[in-house]
């Protein structure tokens, strides 16, 4: 039983990391209805830039700011070059565009900083911590803490500030939002920037976990099922989804793995998400639209 909880909590903590990536998705989907496959690439770009700056002797804080700045620039570029020309196109087109985008960003990041693996040390000792008989990864706890802080910050941003207000307006009804004088492009740019920031944080945590390398951009594949379960349009959903996936994945790995074989963590989340879908076609928190004809 102890062990089970240990696994469970380990999973939940790992799930937080998924949630982190998923949140980036949700932000963009809410604001611009774009299913942003490039989120993973952004994570990679952020982590790679940051770590490369560190390696070139840039102090931590400065590197962080510089990376953040570059993410903002990236966001602005994306808004100008990709989103604006594609406005009012079917979502599937936008999705495919983000596929291309992720290729570009990945290519660019590696072109800039090279493709070799970088270690990233955030100065958190990763020796397990003993809490009431359970061994928990300190790092995971730290990650969970960061994620929690981030979510808190975001919810403040969106619920307390004018920007957040206009964002929610856009999410509800872009046309009405425009009618009351909200500038969509600006909101989009902002949201992509924030998503970039989230990407950065995720990138640091994941980078510290896996080492900063190309495979980081594949975390997007982890985030997908999370989104499916949580629904595309709810930050809370993203977190819950993340936790569920994380836990399920770990448990399956530990208890199912020995039976049917290793390496199942790649697909278990998807099958799980599928099962969810068959029960709730719009995810846990997303609600089903009535089709007007």
């Amino acid at each position, binding site marked *: 039983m102890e062990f089970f909880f240990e696994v469970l909590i380990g999973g939940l903590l790992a799930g937080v990391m998924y949630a982190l990536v998923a949140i980036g998705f949700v932000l963009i989907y809410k604001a611009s209805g774009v*299913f942003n496959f490039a989120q993973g690439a952004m994570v990679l770009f952020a982590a790679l830039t940051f770590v490369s700056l560190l390696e070139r002797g840039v102090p931590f804080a400065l590197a962080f700011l510089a990376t953040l700045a570059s993410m903002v620039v990236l966001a602005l570029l994306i808004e100008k*070059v*990709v989103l604006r*020309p*594609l406005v009012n*196109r079917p*979502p*599937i*087109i936008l*999705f*495919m*565009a983000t*596929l*291309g*985008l*992720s*290729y*570009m*960003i*990945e*290519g*660019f990041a*590696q*072109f800039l900083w*090279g*493709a070799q693996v970088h270690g990233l040390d955030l100065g958190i000792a990763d020796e397990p911590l003993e809490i009431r008989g359970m061994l928990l990864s300190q790092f995971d706890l730290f990650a969970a803490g960061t994620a929690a802080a981030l979510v808190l910050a975001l919810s403040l941003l969106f619920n307390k500030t004018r920007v957040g207000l206009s964002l929610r307006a856009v999410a509800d009804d872009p046309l009405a939002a425009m009618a009351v004088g909200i500038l969509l492009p600006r909101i989009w740019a902002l949201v992509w920037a924030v998503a970039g920031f989230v990407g950065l944080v995720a990138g640091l945590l994941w980078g510290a976990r896996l080492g900063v390398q190309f495979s980081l951009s594949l975390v997007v*594949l982890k985030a*997908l*099922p999370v989104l*499916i379960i949580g629904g*595309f349009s709810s930050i809370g959903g993203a977190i819950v989804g993340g936790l569920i996936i994380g836990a399920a994945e770990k448990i399956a790995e530990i208890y199912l793995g020995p039976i*049917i*074989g290793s*390496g*199942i963590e*790649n*697909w278990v989340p*998807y*099958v799980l*998400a*599928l099962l969810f*879908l*068959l029960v709730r*076609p*719009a*995810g846990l928190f997303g609600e089903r639209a009535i*089709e007007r*004809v």
Partner: protein
Amino acid sequence: MLYQEVGQISTSYAAERRTFRLRQDRIALWLLLGFAFVAVPWLGNDYWFSAILVPLLVLSLAGLGLNLLTGYAGQLSLGSAAFMAVGAFAAYNLQLRVPGLPLLVSFALGGVIAALVAVFFGLPSLRIKGFYLLVATLAAQFVVEWVLTRFSWFTNDNASGVITSPPLLIAGLDFSSPRGRYLLTLAVVVALFWLGKNLVRSELGRNWMAVRDMDTAAAVIGIRLLKAKLLAFAISGFYLGVAGSLWAFAYLGTVEPHGFDLSRSFQVLFIIIIGGLGSVLGNVLGAAFIVLFPILLGNLFGLLPSGLMDAGQLENIQKMLFGALIITFLIKEPEGLARLWQRFRQRARVWPLRY
């Protein structure tokens, strides 16, 4: 200006319905086929056969497979490579375990098995749409990859998991030479493209497009969404399966799960975006682009003084350019290369007038 349409009247619906109504188009088609089947085998060299033509053909077939599902029936999929893998491994195992089974038959059966798998993963499409469906197809991608690597039975307990495919013997003739592989692939691809063209112009093709364009209206005029969608998955799966077999047998010469990873799925998706969603010809154009573009780029950089750019950088630049191209296409010409060709053709028919 090549078109001389005057006097080409149809006195029956059969004549009016034919795929190439204009004589000039039919002539062009036959010339092209003649060139591909007769001239190319003489002119081409092994490099062209095995490095360019065979992958081009196989990828266009795969493109057609995905296009039937995504471009015509409007069901987004990222599992193409999985279905290709199923086809390839099925064909391989049939060859291995059913002695005396003709190669083409095992290709076909491989396709059928891929179709069944595709239907299974297509089942969710009845309840879920769009992006949610992506997940189902991605699940296919990962599950299949895992199963094929996990259970060594599929790879005939081969340690490396990489099997060299058997020689390509059909009716006693050996097609294992590059030229042979080319001819074999060409024959299969041409046949399947002909069927595919018929299909999309048939009633099922119309039903697919109806589901794609406006599924409520489709249901209201009595189209069974369930049947249409599952058939789309099945037939798409069959095409991809056969393409997979060809990819493994005629191109790679080996059967291995890595030949069919997620990036392959993306590649096929890009082919139909660039080539043109909802077009048959587009798949060939898209595949040609995907195959030739990197080679072209490589040669271009070959011209640069050596050492200025290493292979890794070249790959990164390729990736960037690719991404840029995808976006450009989506912005400028969402209907892809096929649309460009159509426009040109349309213009040629009314030249010197504008419309």
